[in-house]
């Protein structure tokens, strides 16, 4: 077998141009697929006609109902799925690199626990008297939990390095436990069975009920997160040998750590407030991409964002079609599909080495 020269491109900017060329077509295909497939399959030409009508103001004659399903329901849903997948994957990349912990995932910092407490407080306790939505409650809860974890970590922390990273992980565990307990307490105290089931469903992560209005939150969150990650590509690389090593390479360690972890947390909180806590993506997509494109962030950041987006669109398609007449929570699908795919990548990689 002849191996072509696979010397990776060392230039961050040239790498990004390459990804900027690859990503849009793939993303477009995924979005169209996400729009065409579902309980009722809509022919591809109808999808494309509706999209050109809506986006470019074309005037193809299409069925009103088809048009509604495609535009208001499925496309919005696919866009949210894409942003959410990209955001969670980026968040995972950042946390794994900075905490130097391969088990770090976006929910490590107490965000999903806080979001569920916030959502339950609004949905069950009626906090805010109907003025604030469940999403807003979830977002506030997530930020509150993250602030708690960050405060705990900085009180217990001290210094930099692996010990500080360990302290953050432990603070995250403590915060998550606390907020999970609060959630359980609220549910036990005042939820009826029906409400409890609805909340469970929401907590597992799901995209039903997602509309265009939700993209106002998730699209900026994903784009902002991606931009911040791209601007920190070299800083993330510099953490390879730990934070002392990063400092000796000229990285303002504290500032980068606080800034990036903060952005990862905000981005995750925004996603969770719209879709609930979709598991697996933030943990496994970064690992899968490390196996495919390597550990350097000039490739890992764009690859993870793209893979996360496509993966979640696909998972949502499966969630909608696998059981006729019923939509599975997407969190269930991500794990059910993702785990075997990840296993295949792991095994394939072993054979290749």
């Amino acid at each position, binding site marked *: 077998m002849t191996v072509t020269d696979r010397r990776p491109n*060392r*230039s961050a900017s*040239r790498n990004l141009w390459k990804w900027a060329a690859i990503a849009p077509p793939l993303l477009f295909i995924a979005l169209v697929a996400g729009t065409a497939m579902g309980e009722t399959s809509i022919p591809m030409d109808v999808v494309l006609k509706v999209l050109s009508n809506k986006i470019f103001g074309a005037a193809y004659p299409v069925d009103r109902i088809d048009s509604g399903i495609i535009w208001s329901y499925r496309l919005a849903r696919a866009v949210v799925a894409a942003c959410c997948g990209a955001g969670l994957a980026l968040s995972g990349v950042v946390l794994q690199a900075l905490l130097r912990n391969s088990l770090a995932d976006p929910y490590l910092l107490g965000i999903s626990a806080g979001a569920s407490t916030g959502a339950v407080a609004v949905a069950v306790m009626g906090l805010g008297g109907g003025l604030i939505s469940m999403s807003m409650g979830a977002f506030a809860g997530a930020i509150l939990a993250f602030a708690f974890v960050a405060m705990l970590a900085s009180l217990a922390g001290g210094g930099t390095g692996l010990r500080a990273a360990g302290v953050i992980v432990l603070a995250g565990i403590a915060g998550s436990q606390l907020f999970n307990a609060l959630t359980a307490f609220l549910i036990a105290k005042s939820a009826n069975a029906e409400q409890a089931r609805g909340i469970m469903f929401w907590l597992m992560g799901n995209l039903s009920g997602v509309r265009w209005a939700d993209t106002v939150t998730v699209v900026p969150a994903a784009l902002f997160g991606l931009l911040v990650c791209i601007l920190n590509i*070299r800083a993330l690389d510099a953490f*390879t040998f730990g934070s002392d090593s990063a400092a*000796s*390479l*000229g990285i303002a360690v504290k500032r980068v750590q606080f800034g990036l972890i903060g952005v990862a947390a905000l981005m995750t909180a925004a996603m969770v407030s719209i879709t609930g806590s979709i598991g697996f993506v933030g943990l496994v997509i970064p690992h899968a991409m490390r196996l495919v494109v390597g550990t350097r962030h000039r490739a890992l950041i764009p690859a993870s964002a793209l893979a996360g987006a496509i993966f979640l669109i696909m998972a949502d398609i499966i969630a909608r079609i696998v059981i006729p007449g019923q939509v599975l929570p997407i969190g269930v699908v991500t794990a059910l599909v993702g785990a075997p795919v990840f296993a295949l990548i792991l095994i394939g990689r072993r054979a290749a080495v």
Partner: protein
Amino acid sequence: MILRCENLGWRVRRKEIVSNASLSMNEGEMLGLIGPNGSGKSTLLRMLAGVRYPSTGRVYLGGTPMAELRQRDIAQKLALVEQHADTEERITVREAVELGRTPFLSVLQPWSHEDEAIVLHAIAAVDLHGFENRNWHTLSGGERQRVQIARALAQQPQVLLLDEPTNHLDIKHQLAILQLVKELPITKVVALHDLNQAMICDRICVMHSGRIETLGAPCEILTEERLMKTFGVCGHFMTDPFDGSPVIRFHRAHKED
């Protein structure tokens, strides 16, 4: 570039790890840092490198207090080779050495031919030619150490701090690396345990329990009394029949001595 520190101290929980360390490196010299385990060599080096903030005192790099410099400005002038540096990431030798260019590249600045040449040169300097695409976790201890040194060389520093750079190396590479460091026309500080190797330094600084005991030329500093006092060993000084340089043989001190 001149590196200097005044009354440096570092404390954890009221325990003085390093105290009152004042040093002034001369332009282009090689300063050896010796002392028993736990005497504070690594801690002092980290403070000098600006990766750990001193509890008391100041470090001056080229006359400017380090606290006033940006981390990136420091890294453009000064490089540190840590005693232990490890990673779980799958990174190649070349990628590890490329990290040395970090302080010189802005976010989207392209990788230039010059960067490439510097990296390849650094890899060749530590005798790792042919290892460029090997994975970090497949390297031996000494090879990893040489990668770390190459990474520091790729920073093209004017001050180089090395924490026990030879502790995993075979004898040939120990000599080669020390000679390489010695010949660099920059200011160097090297923490070492092998006192015979420390003879190569222009000056030697002896540390004990976080304090600088003495500082001076190797042949003045390394005396039988000093070895006894600082390290608790007996040393016999002999003369190398080939080049006339001093050689030390060590024995354990007997309790009753």
